């Protein structure tokens, strides 16, 4: 018995000694996390698998651009390392993956993370730790509205200045659709299919605001869940048809949008159809078309250049070269007009632009300052956005992109998006 106790005592002493030695040896972290003299480490969470996996080529395009920049000397002699983790578009996985980026990989900034709900699940954590959560791949209006003031509706009891979006915001986009409907079909009876979360609700509220006094034009608004089957989506459309809708607005993520487009034909319904731009990638529509959806006349908006319709633009040729050299597996995707790739290149371009303006020895604060003073126009224009559009921020302008162009699908199963109408500015 005594032998055991002695052994126990010895074990405890050894443990304590180890603990003291190790903690003394552990140097405290000095300097900006993620920045060394040779490298800047950033990271983001993306849906490589799961219900939004149709977006998985966005981070690949971003990394291709960083590879290009690195091959040309990097930014202030620092190469960019981008760590991308899969959160499956699941807001319950994003916190642990983000923690991994921050506490294990010690990233300088969280860049480009995708998804409204995923960002909402981590913005308190990142803002409290004063870590940039920037150029997020979601157009929720919170990223611009909650910078200087709090947004209790979104759970932000303090402002969130470290979070920033990039793409034109969803309510602004919905207002463009409202304008279009009011102008071309004032007596429309609208059926809205929207995702049952903050993402979908943001769009729907924007549409209602845009319709103003005429919001009763919405005869049926049906929310769907992310994992709903094609048949449940069809059931929602049947309900809208029954309610008399002759205009169909889709505020969805790609898989549901594809189902929605296909199901219209399956139930024999042919309304005027509008699709939100993040689900309007040419590839998505092509696969809907292959499964029987009739695509002509479908409306959406755009803010990036088209690798197919605008292939001769300098920016598009530049993009094609980058993909060919640094992500050649995506060559066929580019040739088919995968908007994800253009989007990824454009966002990465903005990050590098900001990093260049963040000083010789960038800190998180200096990066944020550069991001809040973007001026991508004129000589310094982003080659990947739609010609004529700019990316700008200032103290008063917290939304980097405030312009959209309407586009209509023409050419049937193998067709493409063609812009028409005016450039909408100051959308939100």
């Amino acid at each position: 018995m005594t032998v055991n106790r002695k052994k126990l005592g010895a074990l405890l002493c050894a443990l304590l000694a180890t603990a003291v030695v190790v903690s003394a040896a552990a140097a405290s972290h000095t300097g900006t996390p993620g920045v060394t003299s040779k490298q800047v480490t950033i990271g983001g969470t993306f849906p490589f698998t799961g219900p939004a996996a149709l977006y998985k080529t966005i981070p690949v395009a971003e990394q291709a651009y960083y590879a290009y920049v690195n091959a040309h000397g990097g930014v202030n002699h620092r190469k960019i390392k981008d760590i991308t983790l899969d959160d499956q578009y699941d807001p319950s996985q994003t916190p642990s993956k983000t923690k991994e980026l921050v506490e294990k990989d010690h990233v300088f900034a969280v860049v480009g993370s995708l998804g409204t709900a995923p960002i909402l699940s981590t913005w308190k954590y990142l803002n409290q730790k004063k870590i940039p959560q920037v150029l997020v791949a979601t157009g929720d209006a919170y990223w611009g509205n909650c910078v200087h003031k709090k947004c209790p509706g979104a759970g932000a009891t303090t402002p969130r200045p470290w979070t920033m979006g990039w793409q034109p915001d969803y309510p602004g986009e919905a207002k463009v659709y409202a304008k279009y409907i009011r102008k071309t079909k004032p007596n429309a009876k609208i059926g809205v299919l929207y995702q049952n979360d903050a993402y979908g609700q943001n769009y729907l509220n924007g549409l209602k605001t845009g319709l103003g006094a005429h919001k009763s034009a919405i005869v049926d608004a049906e929310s769907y869940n992310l994992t709903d089957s094609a048949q449940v989506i069809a059931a929602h459309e049947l309900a809208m048809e029954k309610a008399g809708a002759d205009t169909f607005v889709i505020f969805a993520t790609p898989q549901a949008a594809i189902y929605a487009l296909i199901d219209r034909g399956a139930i024999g319904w042919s309304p005027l159809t509008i699709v939100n731009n993040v689900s309007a990638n040419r590839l998505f529509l092509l696969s809907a078309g292959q499964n029987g959806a009739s695509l002509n006349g479908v409306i959406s908006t755009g803010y990036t250049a088209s690798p197919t319709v605008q292939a001769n633009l300098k920016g598009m040729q530049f993009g094609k070269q980058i993909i060919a050299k640094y992500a050649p597996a995506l060559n066929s995707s580019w040739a088919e007009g995968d908007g994800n790739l253009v989007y990824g290149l454009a966002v990465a371009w903005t990050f590098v632009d900001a990093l260049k303006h963040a000083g010789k020895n960038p800190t998180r604060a200096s990066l944020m300052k550069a991001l809040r003073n973007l001026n991508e126009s004129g000589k310094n224009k982003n080659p990947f956005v739609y010609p004529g559009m700019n990316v700008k921020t200032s103290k008063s302008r917290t939304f980097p992109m405030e312009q959209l162009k309407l586009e209509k699908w023409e050419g049937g199963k193998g067709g493409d998006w063609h812009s028409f109408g005016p450039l909408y500015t100051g959308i939100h």
Partner: protein
Amino acid sequence: MRSRIPALVSIAVVAAVISSLPFVLSDYNVSLVTQVGIFFIAVLGLDILTGYTGQISIGHGAFMCIGGYTTAVMSRDHNTNLIVTMLMAFAICFVVGLLVGLPALRLSGAYLALVTFALAVSVPLLPLKWSSFLGGRNGVQTSQTVSNLWVYVVAWTASAILFVLAWLILRGRVGRAFRAVRDSEIAAVASGIELPVYKTLAFGISAAYAGVAGSLFVLANNGFAAPDEFAIFLSLQILIGAAVAGLGSLWGVLVGAAFVGLLPSVSSGVPVIGSAHGQDVVFGAAVILVMLVLPDGVAGLIARLRGMTRA
């Protein structure tokens, strides 16, 4: 009869190691060990149910869901003290467990597995329905933030308390009744044990443990509760942990919990297994192997080893 001293020594060693880890490990790695503590509680709870009364449940993720949301919602709406929310989770899940245990009385074996499986798949969908109150897909965020260290300390303290509680329950009259139920229901009834009472009680206790684990699970996830956190895989993880653990050994439950809690993060750096789903291959293969080769889990292995050294 096992001598008590070696058991006390092993408990003391475990306690010493757990207490010293935060000084030795980085903050991030501390959060990984917290996951082990959380699964320790859940696996212990399932062990009480399946190991001691022979009722299978593939639905403990549902109880974790209820416990986790209790903490998140009470914190968000009423700023309730987080420890108090854990006690509430314990109580609420105990009652829910009793309610599930009642109809479970009429089911056996495969049927009970089926029903608990369906429960595990259905409960996490409910926040999607009552999304204004339960947050829907947007989830629920606690209003208080806690550090990794706080969750670590609370999780392991709760583990210790619940372990002692389990030991007290199982060595007493209730435990003897549980074992009698498992070994032969007919004999148990014949000796006057009220079957329904004890079988339902086991469910309640087991669910209460899972509820506390659920609270901690949410707190460890930055205080964020969302439906997919409690998807069916969670219930399967707990079952796998219990199968690996075997019955009646502290070390068994620790190994089972460590296996289930650490594998995801430990394996993410390893090639081949590294992908997020490579770990599923290991999980699945592990439980199949355990069932084929080591049916009494780590506990059985330890018992056999002890038997070998004695002889």
